[in-house]
């Protein structure tokens, strides 16, 4: 069964990771290196266990185009998010035996080193991926 693990961050969080202080303090190079090294290990282990389908990080929220429709024509809104709004920052698609196993995997992200103010508010969501269109009908 496939699950998606989603992580979130605001533009301010991205700025902090890039070493740029905002209302939030910036990460130090050591903070960033520790996080990167944890994620490397986490992804390698998942891949070796045969549970990782794909994982990706997304570019900063300012690089977002939102496509809407106006009288049947597409129109674009650049950068639709507020600076403090938490939006999808990255995801893992895992294939494992159960929701509980997927939750265990996501739970290990709690061990990811990060500055206190980030760690205190960090979370990940786990959502089952539908295998067929029939599932939507319950």
């Amino acid at each position, binding site marked *: 069964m496939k699950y998606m693990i989603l992580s979130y961050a605001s*533009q301010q969080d*991205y*700025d902090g990771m*890039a070493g*740029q202080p905002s209302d939030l303090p910036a990460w130090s190079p050591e903070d960033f290196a520790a996080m990167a090294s944890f994620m490397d290990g986490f992804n390698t282990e998942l891949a070796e266990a045969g549970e990782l389908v794909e994982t990706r990080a997304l*570019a*900063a929220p*300012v*690089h977002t*185009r939102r*496509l*809407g429709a106006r009288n049947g*024509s*597409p*129109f*674009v*809104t*650049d*950068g*639709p998010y*507020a*600076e403090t709004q938490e939006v999808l920052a990255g995801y893992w698609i895992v294939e494992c035996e159960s929701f509980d196993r997927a939750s265990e995997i996501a739970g290990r992200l709690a061990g990811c080193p990060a500055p206190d103010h980030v760690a205190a508010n960090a979370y990940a969501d786990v959502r089952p991926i539908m295998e067929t269109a029939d599932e939507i009908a319950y």
Partner: protein
Amino acid sequence: MPAADVEDLLRQVAPQVLGAVVRRYGNFDLAEDAVQEALVAAATQWLDGGVPANPKGWLITVAARRLTDMLRNEQARRRREDAVATWELPRQQPDAGDQSANSDDTLILLFMCCHPALSPPSQIALTLRAVGGLTTTEVARAFLVSEATMTRRITRAKQQIKDSGIPFRLPALQERTERLAVVLHVLYLIFTEGYAATSGPSLHRVELATEAVRLTRSVHELLPENAEAAGLLALMLLTDARRAARTTPTGELVPLAEQDRALWNRDYITEGIALITAALLRGRSGPYQLQAAIAAIHDEAASTEETDWPQIKALYELLVQSSDNPMVALNHAVAVAMADGPAAGLERVQTLAKDKQLAEDHRLHSVRAHLLELSGDTAAAREAYRAAARRATNLPQQRYLISRAARLPDS
């Protein structure tokens, strides 16, 4: 690495870096500023710290970071002003199965900067900055305008590109030929501007003619099958080959007939002749190829007398058919005179003088004067030189024409 080499490297990768950033993140207007800042940062840091192993990658990373910063500031400001930016997605669909839609970024950037919605001065300025990697200061200096004026021109041009909503890709196949003609024309204008400027009192670090040759060379390399791109590159090389002989050490213009041909750049001539020879074999010749062919005949000749004027005349006849430029018609008259004698040429000039605007142009009178002098009618020639001098627009030209008149006896 010496400063000049760092600069060459930066100018060479600049369009590729901008292309990579715009392709990935859009926002041509801000991305262009971000790349400029990355180039400036590199120019100082690389001199002290050395060039990184992957210079292009370094520049893309630095520019992308800078772009993120700029977008964050812009979006925050807009939110404060409660002005959400939305734009229509253009209707234009990419050509199905058109592989070249993913073509080289330098070419795509050239097409963007030479967008028909922009005025020629804007096209030129933006091309030099975004594709040529020149700073606004350098572009301003090359065109002898203030930096503030040039900044406004470039900002406005970028805003127009943004408003047009054109996607970062080559124009659709059916309009590509027409758009390429605009690109080549812009490069030609940069070249002629640079060529005129080299006779000025001060040489600038940025040689527009050299820059035009460099950019045209890259277009030719990207589109080796395009005969007009090859023709334009040949025309530039064959013209620029005479640069050293064109002016005296004090900056006075030297006409072609009196130039010291030993000063001509043989490498440029060889390359230009090879290019135009290959291009002409491809069939129907456009105006750049014809002009290059004419320049080649001049460059191949040891003197004015040994020039193959009948062939030049024939080429001008073809050129006149495809152009309503009065200067082409005037040059045609000169070729007629050189091939068939001054009387035949003067007859052509007489016909051209029926055009009221051309009749008031100093160049018509100057040509008439030269032809009268050739025919031995020195009194009429003197009058014509004086008539030309009265209509000439700048001092060196006036001085030249008056000195020609003074050399001739009264009768």
